[in-house]
């Protein structure tokens, strides 16, 4: 769903006529709840110590694999580490990678898209054909390729996911920029003799960015999933630092005997992504309804 939103610029350039109806159908309490969850997640990511006093890497073999209880809300893992603390501490790397890769993807996509839209026919052709090539590859494959070249680790996973999503953004930015460039106010500005860099910075860029930021919100959820996926494959966070994807991978062999090791990190990913998506789509619809 989110991948489609990223890949489908039509959603923004041609706002859906059903926008009002969709907006009405969207449950407001759901959006509010998602907002609250997002605020909580942000707090957890900023300072997990606010919510638990247990260290995430503290092992205690005597209490290994105990189920959820009053003392350990999410149970303990194979080494007796408190899963609640690990899930909380895992929020930061997991969300940070999603955020970082979205930001990098937006920056890269904007640069390429603007350059294509404003760089003349040759530049446009060259850049957009390159983008076409990249878009023809499934994003996860592209990310895996990037990890292979860049090497593993949290930062590289961030970059890899960014590389996977940047082409989608580039295409949207280009389309938006082309529309904006031909709009009346830009032509007026040209008529007033504004220099090109000023024109781009003052008029084209700000008017292109709006829809992009909304898309970025939705894309953030997808980035979290992809980054967790790469971590699940052992390409991301280094043990013993907690990260949701890596924890999910560690827990998958225990689903029948100790479900809590895999389920809670998985819930973390699910809740975060759903919350971000609900808020993102809400913003998207608000924006689409108002844009033109």
């Amino acid at each position, binding site marked *: 769903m989110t991948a489609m939103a990223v890949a489908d610029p039509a959603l923004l350039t041609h706002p859906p006529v059903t926008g009002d109806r969709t907006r009405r159908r969207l449950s407001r309490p759901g959006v509010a709840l998602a907002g609250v969850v997002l605020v909580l997640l942000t707090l957890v990511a900023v300072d997990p110590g606010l919510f638990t006093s247990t260290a995430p890497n*503290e092992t205690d073999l005597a209490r290994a694999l105990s189920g959820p209880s009053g003392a350990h809300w999410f149970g303990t893992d194979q080494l007796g580490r408190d899963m609640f603390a690990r899930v909380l501490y895992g929020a930061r790397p997991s969300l940070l990678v999603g955020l970082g890769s979205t930001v990098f993807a937006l920056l890269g996509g904007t640069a390429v898209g603007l350059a294509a839209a404003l760089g003349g026919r040759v530049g446009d052709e060259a850049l957009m054909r390159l983008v076409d090539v990249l878009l023809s590859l499934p994003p996860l494959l592209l990310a895996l390729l990037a990890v292979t070249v860049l090497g593993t680790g949290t930062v590289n996973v961030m970059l890899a996911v960014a590389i996977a999503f940047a082409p989608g953004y580039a295409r949207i930015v280009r389309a938006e920029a082309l529309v904006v460039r031909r709009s009346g106010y830009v032509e007026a500005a040209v008529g007033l003799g504004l220099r090109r860099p000023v024109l781009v910075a003052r008029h084209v860029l700000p008017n292109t960015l709006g829809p992009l930021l909304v898309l970025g919100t939705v894309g953030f959820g997808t980035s979290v999933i992809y980054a967790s996926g790469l971590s699940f494959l052992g390409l991301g966070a280094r043990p013993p630092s907690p990260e949701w994807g890596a924890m999910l991978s560690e827990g998958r062999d225990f689903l029948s005997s100790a479900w809590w090791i895999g389920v809670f990190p998985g819930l973390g990913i699910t809740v975060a992504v759903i919350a971000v998506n609900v808020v993102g789509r809400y913003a998207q619809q608000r924006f689409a309804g108002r844009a033109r």
Partner: protein
Amino acid sequence: MHVSRSRSRPFYALVATAATAAIALSACGSGGGTSGAAAGRPTAGGSVTYAVDTEPVCYDVHVSSQDITAEIQRNVVDSLVFEDANKKFHPWLASSWEISKDNKSFTFHLRKGVKFTDGTVFDASAVKANFDYIAAPATKSQYASTLIKSYTGTDIIDPDTVRINFSTPSAPFLQAASTTYLGFYSPKTLAAGGGKLCAESAAQVGTGPFTVAGYTKGQSVQFARNPAYNWAPQGAGHTGPAYLSKLTIRILPEDSTRVGALTSGQVDIARAVPPSDVKAVQADPALSLVRKQAAGGSYQIFLNVTRAPLTDQRVREAIERGINIGADVQAVYFGQYTRAWSPLSPTTPSYDSSLNNSWPFDPTLANKLLDEAGWTGRNAKGVRTKDGKALTLVWPLMPAEYEKDQRTILGQAIQADLKKIGIDLERPTFDIGTYITKGYAGQFDILDASWARPEADILRLFFNSTSTAATGGQNASFISDKQLDQWTNQGAATLDPAVRDAAYGKVQERVISLAAAVPIYVPTTLVGVSKQVHGFTADASSWPLFYGTWTDKK
């Protein structure tokens, strides 16, 4: 895909793969040996499905160093000598043999009437063709060639007699000759292009009790009984063809899937039952669990003695004594695996049992050693420092596809233990190529591995100074020690058990006293077997032999 890169050299990654997993069969949860004794008389016919956890990267026994290759191909290729589960040698394709006094040449009198399944006669020239193929640089053998390292050639004395020659004393060769890695392919197959053997299971033609009947990459290998088979090793329990008319090996890498397939009856036997599922398998009335410690090298961590601060023996000893090995192994493996005390596993010949309990967990001593070594400062993270440098060691993670036995989690337990005495372990991940290149160059502080071979000569592979990575060795501690060299060479030069026990005992003790490697656990194989299956036995490497297996299910 990584394989092509690695094929030219044996490599650390496969050390682990080649190593422990072994399958294991005799000493069984329900009491021993083959499960057949009480189950009535063997009957021919029927089929058995065996689930394994990995697919061989390469199916050519002469090239691959993986134990899964040897294990699967044992059904297809036979060897000169058979080593039983009690490490006794029996005639097989060779009916008798003589060894020269200097242990440099081995004369084998071949069994008559043996034929490959393509009709070719097994004779002296077939033996020569196979050994020459292994030794040829073009074969790029990762492991078999190291078993015949100083091979100089095979003399055909007459069609039924061969002499295999070495330039250095090679007493362990007799054991090597019993392994699948030195088994025999039809010379026709070798001539038709040995390259195919690696990629295509179906290309395998040997003299074994089964022939390859079908192969689906990544999924399964099917075997059919070889009806002409009449040369089972002595001690195999019966003669003539195998009982099973069909054998299917299914590749099910995901633990939960494999165990699920076993408990639901989709497969009859499953290899590598995860310790966490042992209880469930034991509780199932339709299944029994076979557990056996694999012979060979323990799972151990090798401390690179050429890299500061591990050049300081006190730091190495602190690591050796600062890991709560017993408790970690107990917790991570649910009490199914035991902790190791020696670089050799207890079921390996020449195991030195005097090492048992000789270097227990002692964090006080570990802290004292680190203080003495000058690592007295502490940084903000609680890591010890000396002259402003933190005591941080790099121990790369095995790429996920080679990881096994929950070793990453065990590693986290070790990380937590060492953190308590102020040592910080970093575990970066690399692709297998980088891992090998850097590992070879000695750029890591710690590497981990285990190795399956029921022969103490593996100590030479790991601790002799000439066993560098470049020569196919596995000296991951990068240790160069005169006494270790002398004793490992001494062991390789004789077949006298007393001399070998003494020499290898000294090697094991010295490795521990130098803290060149820290043994962690004894590789143990857990196999779940349906009670409808009988006569499921193992060879000395604790790999399954399906020759004597039969089933009630027809």
